[in-house]
């Protein structure tokens, strides 16, 4: 009886711990997603809300562009191999992690 009680209690405790860990992990990944989304939102002022520019805009939409293409282009702006009016100045202020996180974010959005 005693040992069964212990097993049940332990199982309950373990379940509680595991779900707490899962909850904490959910919160961490939710936090990271929010931070990535905030970083990506810095592009929206020029490239449109959620990366979708207004109709007829010469500044292009970036939602749904392939991730690797976006990383390449931002690096090309950064090292000067792709000429620009403004993007070379912006990309020089971004970390590699910010560049890949933004590319991930916009690549996952529908065009």
């Amino acid at each position, binding site marked *: 009886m005693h040992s069964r009680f212990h097993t049940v209690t332990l199982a309950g405790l373990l379940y509680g711990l595991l779900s707490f860990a899962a909850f904490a992990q959910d919160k*961490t990944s939710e936090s990271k997603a929010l*931070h990535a*989304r905030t970083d990506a939102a810095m592009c929206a002022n020029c490239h449109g809300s959620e990366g979708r520019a207004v109709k007829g*805009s010469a500044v292009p939409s970036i939602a749904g562009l392939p991730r690797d293409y976006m990383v390449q282009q931002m690096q090309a702006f950064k090292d000067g191999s792709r000429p620009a009016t403004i993007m070379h*100045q912006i*990309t*020089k*202020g971004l970390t590699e992690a910010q560049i890949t996180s933004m590319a991930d974010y916009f690549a996952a959005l529908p065009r």
Partner: protein
Amino acid sequence: MKRRYLLQAGLAIGGAQALALQSLWAAAASLPAKTQVIVIGGGYGGATAAKYVRMFSNYKINVVLIEPNTSFISCPMSNLVIGGSKNLTELTTSYDALSSKHGVTVVKDKVSAIDPQKKTVALQNGGSIGYDKLVLSPGVDMMFNSIEGLQAANTSGHILQAWKAGAETQALRKQLEAMPDGGVYALTVPEAPYRCPPGPYERASQVAHYFKQAKPKSKVLILDANPDITSKASLFKKFWSDNYKDIIEYRPNHKVTSVDTGMMSINFDVQEPVKAQVLNVLPSMRAGAIAVQTGLATANNRWCGINYQSFESVAAKDIHILGDAILAAPAMPKSAHMANSHAKVAAAAIVAQLSGLESNPAPYLTNTCYSYVSDKMVVHVASVHQYNAEEKTYKTVPGSGGLSSEANALEGTYAWNWAQNIWADSLL
């Protein structure tokens, strides 16, 4: 009383019916007794914050936006109205999409008082609303009383500021149209910091562009309290000497002490008075009155000190302050783009705090600012501001940011697209 009754009825019915009732209240412009986030001010900072708190919370957090104006009129691009190449309608965006598309409750009213202890906001038309988080984006107030005679001259319409886009923008355009050829337009610039550092020089360029086409014998006189042009100086000077050589005259270190509408003259602390047919006097500025009266303007009683990671006031918990009203971090201009960027970082911090998420350890902000030196030619300045956790402030990244190499028409197209995209990003 009726509102309270309706609210309770709505709660009792619950679910879909309550939602239907809620939209009815919005239509009737009545108030909830309490909401999670209140945003004061529907400019670039406030409108963006309202929308992004909704978006970042996946539409779970309720937002009320309090704004006295019926629609949003952009300050950026408003110098083009003064120059004559755009009209105010083209710079105007409705607040409707914030409610219809994003579920923000827009209340057309002005806040008369904030109680940071009770966490309530009182409205001028009566009633008050409680909040969990308050976003304050009050913009700037002109300190008319810092210049003798200016308040009366502005009230009578003789001397305009037109630094808040709207009726004064059109009135200044009319003054310039009515001015005979051979007249002088005098623009005074206050000591930095003020809203939109390159704005006065863009305005001078726009008026010069208009004079060149329509009144070639007329002059633009810039009387600057600062020792030099405060933004994009070399670009403005080059374009002026190439295009407006006989029209624009720039005089630094001119601090205005008083104005005289009878003589149509401006007096300075040191120099001789200046007479002109059109006077456009920009006084010193400070955070909007509601911030000052709530005791949030901690820096010199003019600008609001904040925690730069979350934009929360240093003087009051759960009040986040955005835009031109804040005590800016080094090299951070008081611009529309900056306010829109502040709003996103603040919105994320608010959503994180209300949802039990971790705060962003390293937010960053961008700024781009375009100035039209004619109807088509543009110069820009851009910067990137990364949060520095050790120093608890934003720092520009060495080697990043910069200026246009020269005025160009390509950026004229980009500048207008920037405006359209940031209006959509803030309001649609």
